């Protein structure tokens, strides 16, 4: 016989002003099986919880229903209170009479009737609750970090320094990501490679970090504590352990023209065997087989091998699949820049001297194609006038994306400042919509660009850019003075918006984590769980989640790392016990459940007699993999599988309680 306690919360006046809580309590008391019904101002407060505990103890309750706020608010609070009195936590059910009744309805009588219905429903559910034990899953204390940009590097270093092994996988030949492409960084103007390379070297030398560059994630299976990861190490054609990074091979390569450098964003050429940039980590070249003469002309050219001292170039190397088992994963896949082809009026791609912000970084960089001297791509002359156009693609729902890319205001101010520092007597113009400079020292930085460095800021958009007599004529509006402006510039820099890294959606699907309509990876909760994905054991960091600057990327890398170190500080991970279970007596081994299971949680189980003969085959649920979604329950023809906490008889009882 059930002994149910019903507790109706007033939530101050939040519930009590719209719902007649006393009526709800009175109705509760009439339900067979309900032995105690109370109402209280704040059930979640300490006195509220104490009264709950007292009643559980005194009346020896077998189940508790709280008519209160959403279960997503305080279910755990009340479960914990119940556990203290020895009640199974899953014997606590919540009737949501705040978010779904008192806050959304106005007619008190009707709201009360609805609250009574929801309360009755939960009483019927709790009567049929079965005790559920949480599942404990062992943890492989090793982490995988996907992406070797600043946030991935930060995560890897923090985890490794916490004493945990890390596998870092980077798609490009070197780690460093976008940050290593930058010249100096706002707002302090410290050089990016000066602060980045020590971290990159530390990653390479750290005893707890295993680094795979020029590698991609091929497959991920498993679950928190036990992910099986397949990493494809692409054929580098260079044996990493023997290479000294001396550079003889790329100096000897005859393919030194016509291949554009990806790292320099097509502003320079590279050889077929190459390192993307001089400070690459690891300093081991990659042979690009799609352009190498050895592969294109039937093996004749091997000039690189001829000059290689340690003879570490191996044209026969194949892609290699490496398997790792890890307990947690950080996805730090980074970002790309938007295509600007839809802004034909800006002439990007048509005029050589219209460049993107990231290309301008390379022109500023001492390790860039012009060795830090600003030269325009068309004729190599130093520009005297540059027009910067902000929000190219960002904040443009029509042609681009509606969101703000966050970093462009600041890097444009930085570009204008560095231009003024490097080319004395030069002039820059910035077309902007709004200036967003909200972090520490940012506003002062932008002010400095305007006031000390003389950049002219024009609030308005550019309508057209065209070439005339060696100059780029920029036509635009200055909305503050109400004038049309026309500027003859030597160069134009477009602050293109950021978008998720190409292929990050595929990776997300492989990992089983969600992403938003733009392709940015979504957090488990945008405010309260910003480092976690919706899948247990998978964490997020950096621009993969959305536009953010370097300090924020570092913070998010550290946040993911601290979550993983926290997870690994326990010997086992506890999984909610609301998972499927099979009735082996009735299961007919059709395995329709297996077909619908998205988690590979269902396997064959053979039941043997004492002589070892198989007498029956049934479905079996792996508690570490099952997430309790319940898809299998509906697939089962013989009603032999049910999901704990949402059993068939409970749902039918709920529906029945709503009969009219």
């Amino acid at each position, binding site marked *: 016989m059930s002994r149910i306690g019903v507790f109706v919360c007033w939530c101050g006046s939040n519930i009590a002003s719209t719902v007649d809580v006393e009526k709800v309590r009175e109705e509760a008391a009439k339900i*067979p099986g309900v032995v105690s019904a109370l109402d209280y101002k704040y059930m979640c407060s300490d006195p509220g919880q104490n009264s709950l505990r007292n009643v559980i103890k005194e009346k020896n309750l077998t189940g508790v229903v709280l008519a209160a706020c959403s279960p997503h608010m305080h279910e755990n609070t009340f479960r914990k209170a119940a556990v203290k009195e020895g009640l199974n936590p899953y014997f606590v059910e919540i009737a949501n009479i705040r*978010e779904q009744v008192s806050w959304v309805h106005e007619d008190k009588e009707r709201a009360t009737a609805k609250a009574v219905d*929801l309360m009755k429903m939960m009483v019927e559910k709790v009567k049929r609750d079965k005790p559920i034990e949480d599942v404990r899953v062992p943890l492989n204390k090793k982490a995988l970090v996907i992406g070797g940009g600043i946030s991935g590097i930060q995560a890897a270093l923090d985890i490794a320094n916490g004493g945990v092994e890390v596998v870092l996988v980077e798609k490009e030949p070197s780690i460093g990501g976008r940050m290593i492409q930058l010249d100096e960084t706002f707002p302090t103007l410290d050089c990016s490679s000066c602060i980045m390379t020590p971290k990159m070297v530390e990653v390479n030398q750290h005893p707890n970090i295993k680094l795979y560059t020029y590698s991609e994630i091929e497959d991920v299976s498993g679950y928190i504590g036990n992910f099986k990861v397949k990493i494809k190490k692409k054929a580098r054609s260079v044996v990493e352990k023997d290479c000294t990074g001396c550079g003889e091979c790329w100096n000897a390569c005859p393919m030194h023209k016509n291949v554009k450098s990806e790292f320099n964003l097509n502003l320079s050429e590279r050889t077929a065997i190459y390192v993307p940039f001089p400070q690459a980590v690891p300093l081991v070249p990659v042979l690009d087989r799609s352009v190498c003469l050895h592969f294109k002309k039937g093996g004749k050219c091997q000039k690189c091998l001829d000059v290689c001292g340690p003879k570490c170039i191996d044209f026969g190397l194949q892609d290699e699949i490496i398997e790792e088992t890890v307990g947690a994963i950080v996805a730090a896949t980074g970002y790309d820049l938007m295509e600007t082809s839809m802004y034909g009026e800006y002439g990007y791609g048509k005029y050589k001297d219209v460049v993107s912000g990231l290309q301008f970084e390379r022109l500023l960089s001492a390790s860039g194609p012009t060795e830090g001297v600003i030269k325009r791509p068309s004729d190599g002359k130093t520009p005297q006038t540059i027009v910067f156009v902000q929000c190219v693609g960002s904040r443009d729902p029509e042609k681009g994306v509606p969101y703000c890319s966050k970093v462009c205001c600041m890097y444009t101010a930085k570009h204008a400042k560095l231009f003024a520092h490097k080319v004395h007597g030069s002039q820059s113009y910035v077309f902007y919509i709004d200036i967003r400079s909200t972090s520490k020292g940012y506003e002062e930085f932008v002010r400095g660009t305007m006031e000390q460095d003389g950049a002219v800021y024009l609030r308005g958009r550019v309508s057209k850019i065209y070439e005339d007599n060696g100059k780029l004529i920029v036509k635009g509006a200055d909305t503050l003075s109400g004038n049309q402006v026309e500027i003859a510039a030597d160069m134009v820099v477009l602050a293109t918006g950021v978008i998720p890294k190409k292929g990050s959606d595929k990776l997300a699907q492989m990992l089983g984590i*969600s992403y938003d309509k733009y392709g940015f990876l979504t957090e488990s909760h945008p405010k309260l769980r910003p480092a976690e994905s919706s899948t247990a054991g998978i964490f997020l960091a950096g621009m993969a989640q959305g536009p953010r600057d370097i300090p924020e990327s570092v913070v998010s890398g550290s946040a993911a790392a601290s979550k993983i170190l926290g997870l690994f500080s326990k010997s086992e991970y506890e999984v909610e016990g609301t998972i499927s279970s099979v009735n082996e007596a009735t299961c007919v081994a059709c395995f329709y459940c297996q077909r*619908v299971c998205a988690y590979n949680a269902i396997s064959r189980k053979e039941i043997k007699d004492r002589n070892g003969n198989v007498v029956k085959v049934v479905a079996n649920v792996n508690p570490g993999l099952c997430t309790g*979604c319940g898809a299998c329950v509906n697939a089962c023809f013989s009603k032999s599988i049910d999901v704990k906490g949402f059993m068939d008889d409970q749902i039918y009882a709920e529906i029945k309680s*709503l009969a*009219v």
Partner: protein
Amino acid sequence: MEDMNAEKEKQKEGTAATNAGSQSDPRLIAFVCNWCTYNGADLAGTSRMKYSDNVRVIKLPCTGRIDPLFIVEAFKKGAKGVLVSGCHPGDCHYTSGNYHSRRKYATFRDLLGYLGVDLNRVEFSWISASEGNKWVAVINEFTDKIKSLPDKTTDIFTKK
């Protein structure tokens, strides 16, 4: 058994006195998933949006858990309309549960039509955790629609 009989008595008393459940004041049952639509409905609450109070929400882990027989059972118990709502395609917390649900629903709808149920009485929608406004709109529109229908179309389930 005593429990159940007593319950039945109570329910009869309750319904005799009011108009609840009639065509003019229809009972709607919404089967929603825990992750998207339930949160969307909660968001409507935290945003203090107002909507029709005819709906009763039954929370399930995922729309993939929703057995078509739940919908039949809801009609049998006097519901005048049934709503199924979960995460948008591609956003299922459980990867593919909403696809199973959608496929099942498409077939089941045909069957309901064959049985003579007015298909206006079953509705399927995707409402994410951030779409409190969509929840409000769906509930209001569905309630209005049900109120406008002729009152005979669920007889197949309620005939004694």
